[in-house]
């Protein structure tokens, strides 16, 4: 039996979904995404008693998530679309959950990892964390995460961030409106995230779920066909000469 790459723990009103692939800085591989989706399915089928009000998503080890594990899939032309479709599916299903979902971004959330953080309803991180979307720098098109970021920080700022590439600090992300609670340093992240989760859990579960459902309707969060279209666009760019050459160079240097 293979080792579990994602775990779900529930303690009264607060559930915690943890990415457990620390040796790869929790890079999103197909098996990791499958385990994450299995945890989400478990939450979807939990009713009433035992159902948490808030779900915190975090990563074991130094980083929340280093992004898509492209190195693992570039050898197989069938694999990148499978990876991208799973990320698109995960983003829609996190939004569809009745729980308020909080990304607790420890260390770094890069590319698809930052997209995963933006797919959560709220994002908490620390001032010196690294966040961002360096996709275009690598010849990759961040089409799956683009709608997530547009919703999170608005179209003008999202355009600038996605087309400029690179990464930024937690403080810079906060100034852009990407961060809902900012811890001064990594050591205090757990406490700041716990305070936020407890405050959210003080709300009525039905009121929170009804509000979230309406917000989803107003901002297109659960439009699965739009998310899958992003996955298709991104996959087609990955098949191109530019991406393959640039990624091969990047993997050779890493």
């Amino acid at each position, binding site marked *: 039996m293979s080792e579990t790459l994602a775990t779900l723990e529930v303690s009264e009103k607060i559930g915690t979904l943890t990415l457990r692939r620390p040796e790869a800085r929790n890079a999103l591989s197909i098996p990791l995404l499958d385990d994450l989706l299995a945890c989400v399915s478990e939450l979807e089928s939990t009713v009433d008693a035992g159902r948490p009000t808030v779900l915190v998503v975090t990563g074991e080890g130094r980083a929340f998530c280093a992004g898509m594990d492209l190195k693992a899939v570039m050898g197989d032309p069938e694999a990148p679309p499978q990876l991208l479709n799973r990320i698109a599916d995960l983003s829609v299903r996190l939004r569809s959950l009745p729980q*308020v979902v909080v990304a607790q971004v420890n260390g770094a959330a890069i590319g698809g990892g930052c997209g995963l953080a*933006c797919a959560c*309803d*709220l994002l908490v991180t620390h001032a010196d964390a690294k966040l961002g979307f360096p996709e275009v720098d690598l010849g990759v098109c961040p089409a799956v995460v683009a709608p997530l970021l547009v*919703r*999170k*920080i*608005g179209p003008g*700022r999202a355009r600038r961030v996605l087309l400029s590439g690179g990464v930024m600090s937690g403080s810079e992300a906060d*100034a852009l*409106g*990407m961060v*809902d609670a900012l811890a001064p340093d990594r050591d205090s992240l757990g406490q700041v995230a716990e305070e*936020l989760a407890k*405050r*959210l859990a*003080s*709300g*009525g*579960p*039905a*009121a*929170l779920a*009804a*509000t*979230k*459902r*309406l*917000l989803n*309707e*107003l*901002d*297109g*969060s659960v439009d699965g066909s739009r998310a899958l279209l992003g996955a298709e666009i991104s996959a087609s760019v990955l098949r191109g000469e530019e991406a393959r050459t640039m990624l091969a160079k990047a993997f050779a240097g890493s």
Partner: protein
Amino acid sequence: MSSSHVRAETVDLDGQPVGVLTIDRPDKRNALTPEMLAELDQGARELGSASHALLLRGEGTVFCAGFDLSLCVEAPDGAVMRELLTGLDRFIRTLRGLPIGVVASVQGAALAGGCAVLGGCELVIAHPESKLGYPVVRIGVSPAVSAPTLMSRLSAGATRSRQLDPGLIDARRAHELGLVDVLSDDPEREARAHVQAFASKPPEAFARTKAWLNELTDAESEMGLDAGASLARSLDLTGGDEERAMLPRALRR
């Protein structure tokens, strides 16, 4: 107006008639009753046709602390909460639909329904120390009613964060998010200057531009929802088990 809790006046500001709509219940932190919301709505309509711009303000140290919840506890079937939510929705839509510019002056706090009305204003001027937010999920109430107008001012993400998180933010943070347009130590004085500037604009061009912006930023129609879908989502929960359990507990605190 007959009520002692809402004042609607037309004043002359540098030769222009401007409306001043005041929430006037300072001993209750300007907490809103169904009657006050009806009077605010009527006042806004009257001033909208009699003046060239509108100032919305609260008397005393707090702009508006939201609904008068003591009335809701007396009606556990949710009847008063329904009236309040419906009245709030109507008032915000009226402000939005006025052909003139609406400027809010915020001191102290703008909470729950008091924060929601800011979504119907063109400009929000606030004291930097004032507190804003939607603590209503704590009483089992959904703030969904004000989501569309809030979303027409803020990113969808900031709207989501403000509506789901019952915590308050100060006006400085609200300014970064776009919920507050101008910070000022004397918000009312600053707001009057903006009201005057709005009043001096050519009325046809102003009204047409405002109407077009309303249309462009209307998330309900954009997403194919009925106007009022958001209110319906808030009304669905009123008088339900969660509200009946949480509201009295919150008031006892």
